[in-house]
């Protein structure tokens, strides 16, 4: 796995994104088409933005791995664990499953879709989206729009996206997986 260090400064977001994309294009040049290129870019931008929001002065490590045409983009830090205030409960780590009526948690959403988390175990959440086909957008739809897009963007752009919290070390890891296709 190739690792890149992000110093959690806004100015570093775009240069590092460009640097990582360049590395990925180099190791996977025959399997990164325009669509995959777009998805990789926004996932990196959102992971780094997420880091800026939650980290402070420490560094974040971005890991890139390619195995069997699957690209793994991970973000690792020792910042605050992921905190999500769902309608059902405030997520704290380790997750207590008894807080939820089922192992799927609605995190946020609007008429167009909901970002959900599937509890894999007490220290791992797998994100996915439930999308709805909205044919007519009226004022009510717009007024009800979600204004938080970060995790939703990554979840929609990824083929799989999860979060792990390691209690002993306090390490948080987000991992996005993109299935690349041979041209």
């Amino acid at each position, binding site marked *: 796995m190739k690792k890149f260090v992000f110093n959690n400064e*806004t100015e570093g*977001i*775009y240069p590092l994104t460009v640097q990582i994309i360049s590395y990925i294009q180099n190791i996977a040049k025959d399997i990164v088409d325009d669509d995959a290129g*777009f998805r990789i*870019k*926004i996932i990196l*931008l*959102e992971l780094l*933005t997420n880091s*800026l*929001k939650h980290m402070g002065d420490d560094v974040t490590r971005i890991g890139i791995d390619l195995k069997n045409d699957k690209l793994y983009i991970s973000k690792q830090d020792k910042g605050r664990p992921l905190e999500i205030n769902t309608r059902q409960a405030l997520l704290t780590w380790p997750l207590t499953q008894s807080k939820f009526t089922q192992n799927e948690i609605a995190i946020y959403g609007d008429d*167009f*879709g909901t970002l959900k988390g599937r509890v894999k175990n007490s220290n791992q959440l797998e994100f996915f989206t439930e999308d709805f086909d*909205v044919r007519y*957008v009226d*004022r009510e*739809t*717009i*007024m009800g*729009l*979600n*204004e*938080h*897009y*970060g995790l*939703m*963007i990554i979840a*929609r*752009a990824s083929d799989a996206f999860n979060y792990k919290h390691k209690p002993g070390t306090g390490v948080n890891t987000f991992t996005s997986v993109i299935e690349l296709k041979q041209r």
Partner: protein
Amino acid sequence: MILQTHLLDSALIADIQLKEANLANSDQFKSELIILINNGNKYIIVNFEQVIYIDSSFLGALVSALKLTMNNGGDIAVVGLNSDIRSLFQLVRLDKVFKIYTNTQEALTGA
């Protein structure tokens, strides 16, 4: 100032003077848009021509401003999106919410 504005016909054109539309400037962008809306501008065309990427914070600010505009009986159109930004709007379904035009002239004629 992030937004450079001028009136054209019945619309206010707001050119974003940024290359990177991200967390560092989304609050200011939202504040400036809110001032424009509260000043009575009904139809605002936000021009992204200079922007190379936009993040979730900036999208959230844009949506928040749209809600305020609609409450005031107005609307916001966006123009000058590069292909990645346009794809991002599609990914989060905001292409169904905002009127998206290639350029200001198209937005003025509603083409």
